């Protein structure tokens, strides 16, 4: 199967489908580094992203949202499960077969200071994927890079500068330009704006939205800020301790949240309006997120949930569709 060379045939409209993805990291101890347990970073996650759609993945730190993103990019080899990207199951592909697939994937990471090589010029950083995948010759290399600079709103005059000469927002634009260099179909954005100043965040959100419309991109947008995720996403998946607890479209998530964790998460997000804020009832969760090395039995959320019964303590709730593509993993809904 030469999926990479030929344009892959997509039967249904989903660009990527993740089925029962599990990613466990071993905990080792002692001199022999014997395995004593697992960090269940991602524990049975399934979702689909359709073409031209943005799936927002929200959750608190340690819930496994970044690990999902890295599995999709195949930066990790998943413990089990399938990742079907453009018709090919990439979850078990060896490294030499996965590399050509990465032409169709882009990635933007959180820290624009750490993700750009400080010794390379902006031209080389942005054009690196073109060279790696041999997508541009000597003649059209500069033209392509200039195009990319214009696309992300950077002046091509700055092409020969090195990263420290750019501000945080401009660096994130460079990272976006690099992610788009191979004209990917899927871009994984892992907390792309959380390291930026408030007034710059909106610039990057708008840029991502515009580029999506122009290039017909599909995004997996990973972030912890619910109001940002909701703004950019078509659908939102809420993760808690390695599992997806609720998936629905962006409007419905706000107007009709069903999972108790989603409700708590929404009520914790501050709204910049004192009239709403000072009368709003807040659900303040008790306790802390349990360790993913030793998650609670049954529903992972039950120790902090007010609705929990014995059923929740024993049986793992599966995501079930309650209409309109709104899926929730809770017995009490």
């Amino acid at each position, binding site marked *: 199967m030469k999926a990479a060379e030929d344009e892959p045939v997509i039967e249904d409209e989903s660009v990527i489908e993740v089925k029962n993805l599990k990613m466990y990291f071993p905990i080792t101890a002692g001199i022999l580094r014997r395995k004593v347990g697992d960090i269940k970073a991602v524990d049975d996650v399934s979702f689909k992203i359709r073409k031209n759609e943005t799936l927002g993945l929200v959750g*608190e*730190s340690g819930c496994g949202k970044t690990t999902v993103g890295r599995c999709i990019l195949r930066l990790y080899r998943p413990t089990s499960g399938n990742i079907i990207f453009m018709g090919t199951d990439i979850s078990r592909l060896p490294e030499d077969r996965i590399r050509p697939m990465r032409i169709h994937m882009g990635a933007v990471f959180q820290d624009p200071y750490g993700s750009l090589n400080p010794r390379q010029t902006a031209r080389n950083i942005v054009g690196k994927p073109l060279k790696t995948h041999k997508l541009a010759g000597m003649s059209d290399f500069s033209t392509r890079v200039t195009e990319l600079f214009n696309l992300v709103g950077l002046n091509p005059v700055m092409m020969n500068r090195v990263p420290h000469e750019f*501000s945080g*927002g401009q660096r994130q634009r460079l990272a976006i330009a690099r992610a788009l260099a191979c004209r990917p179909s899927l871009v994984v954005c892992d907390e792309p704006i959380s390291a930026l*100043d*408030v*007034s*710059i*965040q*909106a*610039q990057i*959100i*708008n840029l991502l*939205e515009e580029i999506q419309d122009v290039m017909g991109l599909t995004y997996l947008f990973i972030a*912890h*800020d*619910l*109001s*940002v995720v*909701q*703004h*950019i*996403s078509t659908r939102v998946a809420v993760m808690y301790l390695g599992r997806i607890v609720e998936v629905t479209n*962006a*409007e419905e998530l*706000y*107007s009709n949240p069903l999972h108790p964790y989603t409700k*708590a*998460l*929404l*009520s*914790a*997000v*501050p*709204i*910049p*309006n*004192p*009239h709403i*804020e*000072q009368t*709003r009832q*807040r659900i*303040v*969760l008790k306790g*802390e997120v349990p360790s993913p090395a030793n998650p609670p039995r049954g529903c992972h959320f039950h120790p902090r949930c007010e609705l929990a019964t014995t059923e929740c303590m024993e049986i793992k709730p599966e995501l079930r569709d309650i209409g309109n593509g709104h899926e929730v993993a809770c017995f009490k809904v």
Partner: protein
Amino acid sequence: MEALLNVENLKTYFNTYHGQVKAVDGISLYINPRETIGIVGESGCGKSVSMLSVMQLIPTPPGEIVDGKAIFDGNDLLEYDAKGDKMCSVRGGKIAMIFQEPMTSLNPVLTICRQLTETLEWHLGMDPHAARLRAIELLKLVGIPEAEKRIDAYPHQFSGGMRQRVMIAMAISCNPEILIADEPTTALDVTTQAQIMELMKKTTEEFNTSLIIVTHNIGVVARYAERIYVMYAGRIVESGLSYDIFDNPCHPYTIGLLKCVPQLGETRNTRKLIPITGMPPNLIDMEPTCAFLPRCTYKNERCERELWPPLRHIDGKHYVACHGDIREKK
């Protein structure tokens, strides 16, 4: 009602290799007893430096408090020797501070007990045993389970939210008159953020403490602050009751700030975000004109001709530093 702390015309400059950075350039603010105020601004606007200046925690050199007063209890804090007894009894005793990064602000090699009792022994002259009992009480107050056992743990054995609770316990241990919280929840998750903010509000109310929340998150202050100061490039550009700031923002920067943050419940179909163009200014060798001028969408030729405008009264407690007329902006 007389203000508890009154900061007048504070100026803190840093002398760097590239030139002088006017981190705080003439700000005045006050806080009343039992009041909660918010100081909002982006990174580098001088919000933290102004609070550190009041506490005399600015590293000198390179930093220097060039001018200004901080009147607290009838005395000017800035006249005290930074390392002298008088300043030390205020710092941590009467004015306490909570910092952003709860890992770095706790000493990793000392137990929680030692770090809590140190303040109690130093400021209140308690003996070690009494201090320990009080420390356990404080930990219970901030909601740390099994406080008797956990008190002998080290900071790395606590999660981020728990560490911030310890910091709050430490800050309120001497029953301060003012609590300064410098980005108290920025390093924390949203649900933990909600826990910590509610805890801080509850404890300050219980102890009759005034609270200064320094943050870049305008949503956080909307819930808690009664008055808000908006800072930009080392100066206060707008101040007023939080209703004034949110309902009737008069400075183009405040207006921009409110328009560029997505609100919960909004999607890209309902409202497009309007970003503030450009980027925050470099504080070295600033033009004498308004620092927001290059990014301002409401500028007129008067802004380019004249110096940075001082704060101008609008109504009630609402002040703004802008040449332009507010009504035109609406």
